């Protein structure tokens, strides 16, 4: 088996056993990037030397009999929304195109402490605003399964890199579906952990109360492996949960233990808007659980229909404030010839922000304006509470909820760029999860007639990632969707 066919977990074990060197694996990934990425466009930056150096170091230590960290020698990619103290941190935006962070995100530090090899930073919708990665201000990324189609977004670069085996796993971030939806479009596993499970320190903020970092991987086990490394309380992030309240579990340890007496909640009427192929794949997946002994219950979540409306008020309100700092004064892009300091602000932002970012800043600014606050922002918060309540009540009757990740498979590049509402609707199944703060995973569950991947979304209550991963693994263990690869037309 070629090195790049291994999962992250398998690779980790073989490196630890001295069967494969990290340099070999890193070189293989770099070779693939060199050959394939010119067509895919997943990476914004590749750290060849740095990665090989880190790999060498791991190999040297393992040869010396040392025990490496939990990711020793495994080459990974990270979405360019997490600050690294090496290379630029661009957020896919021209306003940060040349921004070099003097500090690194807590998750990056944890990856490095776990002896991971960081290959590079992946493309994304500008400031994580988008569902197709078409909003990147820097580069186009295509879907490895069909290069005429989008990889999904906003973590499209990470999902495409994992799908095209240009890394063994990656990190993405998910504010309204930005890990799960591209994972679904690219046929890989994407996990959005519970809000507060993973530190946001060093994650460039879009919607602070919704953002969460999570793994994009080839298998459920790899997601469990990565989550174990990045999860945990961080004193630098006040919204990260304390170990007393929700201890980090051994996600990998009991992964293969099926959940006994599993009760699955389904939402048939809510799923009605999805493409038939998507509905069928999801229904088949649920049936497969039923066949294995699970009980299926229909759950009523009356407020899910309002999730998109609430999301586009809350996320944009927070974004309008979070993105105020990109003003050309302290760092990032500055307009070349401002007449006065007001023009430093207005022209720098006008020239360097993309259309979608401007649209969301304006939406959010409007929602927070005096006289509109109660009607929009406050009302959206109330809806958010109702949606939380829907999930709490639903989980009284079931262990998990299953539904599609997205209403369609990967759409064509350019298909929705001029219709923001249509684009927003592609997040209909993922957004409520962020509003509720609960964890959700997307795992491959089939293909449509065009051989485009379909994802199954599984949701569980807050801080029950261990159970979520076990439920996902039950399906993965019985199917082989996750072993399918994009046709190598890219080679």
């Amino acid at each position: 088996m070629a090195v790049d066919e291994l999962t992250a977990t398998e690779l980790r074990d073989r490196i630890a056993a001295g069967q494969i060197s990290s340099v070999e694996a890193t070189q293989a990934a770099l070779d693939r990037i060199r050959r394939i990425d010119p067509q895919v466009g997943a990476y914004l930056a590749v750290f060849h030397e740095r990665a090989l150096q880190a790999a060498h170091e791991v190999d040297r230590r393992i040869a010396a009999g040392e025990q490496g960290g939990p990711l020793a020698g495994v080459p990974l990619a990270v979405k360019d929304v997490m600050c690294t103290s090496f290379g630029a941190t661009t957020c896919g935006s021209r306003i940060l195109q040349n921004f070099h962070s003097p500090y690194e995100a807590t998750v990056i530090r944890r990856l490095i402490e776990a002896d991971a090899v960081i290959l590079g930073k992946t493309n994304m919708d500008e400031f994580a605003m988008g569902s197709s990665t078409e909003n990147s201000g820097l580069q186009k990324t295509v879907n490895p399964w069909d290069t005429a189609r989008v990889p999904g977004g906003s973590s499209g670069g990470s999902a495409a890199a994992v799908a095209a085996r240009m890394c063994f796993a990656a990190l993405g971030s998910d504010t309204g579906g930005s890990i799960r939806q591209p994972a679904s479009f690219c046929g890989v596993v994407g996990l959005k952990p519970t809000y507060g499970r993973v530190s946001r320190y060093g994650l460039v903020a879009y919607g602070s109360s919704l953002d969460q970092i999570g793994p994009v991987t080839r298998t459920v086990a790899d997601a469990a492996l990565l989550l174990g490394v990045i999860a945990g309380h961080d004193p630098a992030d006040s919204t990260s949960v304390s170990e007393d309240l929700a201890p980090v579990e051994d996600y990998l340890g009991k992964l293969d233990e099926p959940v006994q007496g599993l009760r699955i909640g389904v939402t048939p009427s809510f799923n009605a808007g999805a493409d038939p192929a998507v509905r069928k794949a999801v229904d088949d997946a649920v049936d497969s659980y039923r066949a294995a002994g699970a009980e299926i219950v229909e759950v009523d979540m009356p407020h899910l229909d309002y999730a998109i409306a609430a999301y586009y008020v809350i996320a944009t309100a927070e974004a309008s404030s979070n993105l105020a700092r990109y003003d050309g004064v302290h760092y990032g892009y500055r307009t070349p010839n401002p007449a006065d300091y007001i023009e430093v602000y207005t022209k720098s932002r006008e020239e360097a922000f993309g259309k979608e970012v401007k649209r969301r800043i304006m939406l959010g600014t409007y929602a927070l304006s005096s006289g509109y606050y109660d009607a929009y922002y406050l009302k959206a918060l109330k809806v958010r509470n109702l949606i939380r309540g829907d999930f709490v009540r639903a989980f009284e009757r079931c262990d998990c909820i299953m539904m599609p990740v997205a209403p369609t498979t990967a759409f064509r590049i350019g298909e929705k760029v001029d219709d923001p509402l249509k684009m927003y609707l592609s997040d209909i199944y993922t957004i409520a999860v962020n509003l509720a703060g609960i964890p959700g995973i997307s795992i491959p569950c089939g293909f449509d007639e065009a051989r485009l991947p379909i994802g199954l979304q599984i949701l569980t209550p807050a801080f029950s990632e261990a159970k979520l991963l076990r439920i996902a693994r039950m399906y993965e263990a019985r199917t082989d969707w996750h072993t399918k690869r994009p046709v190598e037309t890219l080679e």
Partner: protein
Amino acid sequence: MGDLTYNVIVGLEIHVQLATRTKMFCGCALTFGEEANSRVCPVCLGLPGALPVMNRQAVEYAALAAMALDCKVAEFTKWDRKSYYYPDLPKNYQISQYDLPLGSNGFIEIPAEAGETKRIRIRRVHLEEDAGKNVHTAGPYSLVDLNRAGTPLLEIVTEPDLSSAEQVRALAVELQRIVRYLGISEADMQKGHMRFEPNINLVIEKAGRQFKTPIAEVKNLNSFRALERSVAYEVRRQLDDFLETGRTMQMGNKSTRGWNDADETTVLQREKEEAHDYRYFPDPDLVPVTTTPQWLDPIRSRLCELPLQRQVRYVGEYGLSDYDAGVLTAERSTADFFEQAVRSGGDPKRICNLLTQVGLKLANERGRDLRGLGLAPESVAELAGMIDAGTISASAGNAILQAMVETGKKPDVLAQELNLIQRSDAGELEAIVDQVLAANAAAVADVTSGGKKSQKARGFLLGQVMQKTKGQANPKVVAEILDRKLGK
């Protein structure tokens, strides 16, 4: 002006910099005068991805201030973002408290006329982070120094209960004493630790009708003098303006003015109150704050008698003048020292004199407090006792106190060493008086004749005795002997 009368109405907004070790939301040290942008980190620079973490000490200090100002301390409060664009504000929003301030509905007592006090209501007390500083260079650009960005500020807003420039100043001074007493701020005006923004207008009664002048807010005053004078100036200006134009308060005609320190006038900055929309909303990066009794009770135990209460008590209990009581209570350490000396048995007035005439002078010169000079309250009490017993004169007492600071020796040792013990032995002094009387027959005659020169001649004789004893005779004893011998 005929039958015109007016009342001055002032509300005050005060920013006090808290003396925490680190900034409000990051671990940067609070310092003054360091090299520009040397006390900064990703958080206070507002770098992408950086997150604030609340400084608990700042909240505790603010709670203590709120308690001292008799405010209701919120059981539940939160942090809000206040949005505006300015180069010294790196995130372009300030983390503050909007609708749930930490403290509300309190009051402060300030000294008023004739030893009375006046109660000024406090509307709210809240915490927020300071901005940095724009440095305007001679060149075609400005520089930004963010060392100050993120410094914890306590904002205190009074109700419009102040009715003169003097009262405004008195409140500011009183607040300075209070925050220093509580140990929550150095309140050093030179370092900009206290900044004031008075809102001023007049209610004018004229020809049986009432008129209100438009409110003016004077921004960013950082000395008591500027505060008092700007209010006084505004009173005159608004009165003149009313007489000239008849302009009165309308919706939206509140103006913002700046203080010109050079010619002592206020200058119009914004005519109409700008429709400023700060777009406040709860900061999603910070969790709400619940103030439990378990947290607040130990803080409450750090409350102490406030300076003005103490001052009033000194006048009543010890018979000190209001002025002296004010000097002794200006600093908590001085008042504590004074009270301990009194408890050690010294006469309050005597101790007060020693401290105000010598101790505080030396403390000031050396930039220390009384204990920092190496003085012990017990020793000062002992010294006061020596004066009261007549062992030494009052002026010798002052000299000994100074020597105590310089040498660290005990007062009785110094009195011996410096030869300052008064001679009160009647027999010994009588012989000297006899010598003086024998040598100054003319003066003796002047005294006994009882004429105009009598008093002066007696003083002369007394002086001669003191001279012969090199000033060490107890003047009281000498006078008694002298009067007896001269048959008075």
